């Protein structure tokens, strides 16, 4: 009880420091109603809402600078190319990459992971090799590796986890061998919220000369990432989960690795010279960026990063942690609720089931109350199988969520359970 009181007190303190009402005012969609009720948006793990600066930047791109990038000598092409390249440098600073050429602009996390599976796979994976993933991956970090293993006759190994949703590091150590050619794990689990000990995972892999890919789709908007400090080899994330538009994402890779990999797709932008006899490929990063990219989303990613930087990623994390603690303590007061994912270190995800109630039914009633959550398997079916459930209800947080959102969610859940039980 004392603990809860202290936590709550601390929370109020943080609230004052962080001007949440000002932040909420930056997101126009939060003013709307759903089913006659004020919107309570708790599906941020699926995608975040966009601040007005990002929305305005989309319009501004098309009203003021629309033109293809990296090819025109004319003015508009130059300014759109400049703006697109600003994003690359913003991302470089944001994750502390050595150089902007190590930042590949992709369509999103899935695209980034598929790029590595295809290109690293082509160059380095052979029959009998092993790739290690973890038991808490979502489908985007399972299926590309399965496809690669099937094609090459390689073997997929899976790091197990305990009932709290924490990886078994001893099992991981014993999985690492001379056969291991790549480790690909998530930084933060989308279905459980677990923050994995990625630095240790990377260190252990490097001790065996194995590169590591981190899926940072659920981490980059909550946790400060320094790729040099982590010494990570590949890092993948999406724009749309970090307040930027959909259709843009990032693959960071160490230059020496990217240089040693063949191109991904063939087409414009990725070539140096093309004749019908032979094509020579462009330098990094363009080697991996065939075709016209999603220019407006790419440009707006820089605006979203500015937004995060203005608030401060450490402040965001502290605030969201307090909010998650508050939500966790509140939901534990409801009888029959079982939290799925109780790792010691968690970020922004509250996944749960209720005895005798289907997650779908809870989702429908909450929706009627204007509360958006995700229900189902969260594209992580193996995780659900492990807990022997078909799915969960997931509330996932972003920087604009408030204590009132949590209170409304808890009240809505209580009301739903009254109807459903």
């Amino acid at each position: 009880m004392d603990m809860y009181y202290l936590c709550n007190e601390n929370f109020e303190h943080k609230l004052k420091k962080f001007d949440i009402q000002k932040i909420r005012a930056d997101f126009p969609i939060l003013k709307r109603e759903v089913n006659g009720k004020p919107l309570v948006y708790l599906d941020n793990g699926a995608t975040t809402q966009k601040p007005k600066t990002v929305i305005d930047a989309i319009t501004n791109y098309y009203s003021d600078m629309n033109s293809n990038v990296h090819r025109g000598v004319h003015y508009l092409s130059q300014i759109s190319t400049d703006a697109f390249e600003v994003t690359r440098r913003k991302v470089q600073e944001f994750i502390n990459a050595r150089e902007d050429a190590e930042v590949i602009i992709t369509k999103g996390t899935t695209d980034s992971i598929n790029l590595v599976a295809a290109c690293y796979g082509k160059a380095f994976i052979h029959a009998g090799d092993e790739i290690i993933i973890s038991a808490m991956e979502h489908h985007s970090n399972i299926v590309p590796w399965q496809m690669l293993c099937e094609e090459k006759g390689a073997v997929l190994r899976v790091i197990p986890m305990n009932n709290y949703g924490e990886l078994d590091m001893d099992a991981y150590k014993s999985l690492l061998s001379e056969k291991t050619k790549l480790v690909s794990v998530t930084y933060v689990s989308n279905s459980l919220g677990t923050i994995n000990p990625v630095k240790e995972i990377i260190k252990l892999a490097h001790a065996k000369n194995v590169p590591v890919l981190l899926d940072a789709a659920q981490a980059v908007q909550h946790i400060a990432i320094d790729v040099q400090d982590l010494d990570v080899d590949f890092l993948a994330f999406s724009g749309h989960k970090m307040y930027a538009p959909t259709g843009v994402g990032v693959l960071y890779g160490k230059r020496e690795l990217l240089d040693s990999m063949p191109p991904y797709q063939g087409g414009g932008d990725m070539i140096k010279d093309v004749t019908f006899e032979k094509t020579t490929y462009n330098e990094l990063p363009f080697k991996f960026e065939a075709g016209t990219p999603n220019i407006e989303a790419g440009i707006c990613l820089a605006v979203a990063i500015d937004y995060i930087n203005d608030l401060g990623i450490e402040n965001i994390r502290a605030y969201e942690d307090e909010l998650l603690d508050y939500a966790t303590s509140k939901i534990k007061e409801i009888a029959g609720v079982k939290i799925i994912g109780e790792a010691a270190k968690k970020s922004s995800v509250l996944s749960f089931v209720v005895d005798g109630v289907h997650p779908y039914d809870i989702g429908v009633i909450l929706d009627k109350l204007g509360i958006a959550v995700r229900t189902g398997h969260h594209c992580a079916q193996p995780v659900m199988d492990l807990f022997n459930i078909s799915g969960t209800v997931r509330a996932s947080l972003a920087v604009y969520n408030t204590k009132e959102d949590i209170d409304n969610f808890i009240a809505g859940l209580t009301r739903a359970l009254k109807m459903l039980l």
Partner: protein
Amino acid sequence: MTINEIQDELIEDFSFYGDWMEKYEYIIQLGKEVPLIDEQYKIDQFIIKGCQSKVWLFPELVDGKINFKADSDAIITKGLVSLMVKVLSGHTAKEIADADLYFIDQIGLKEHLSPTRANGLLAMVKQMKLYAIALQSR
């Protein structure tokens, strides 16, 4: 009663419920009235795909008419399938295949027909009509 008479009756029933909460409570209640599928038929063959929750639907041809039995692991979905069974069960294959299910819109459940909804009401309707066509041609 014809399919349309049953639909009209349901539209009248639902008109008594002012707010969504009463409506959903009624749907949940209807779920308890659905003729339950025999446990032995709760197998993959009788699962309707496209639902976040599981729906089992079993058709039977009795004296030229089709009877449906069903179940679901989610109670709102069970209510929705119960509504469909109420309307379509006990009719000939041709009547089922030709049915215009206007009641769904009129009782305010149109949102559940959207393909993006995970409850698969659309898939249920489609499957019931497919069963009817299959049994008709037998």
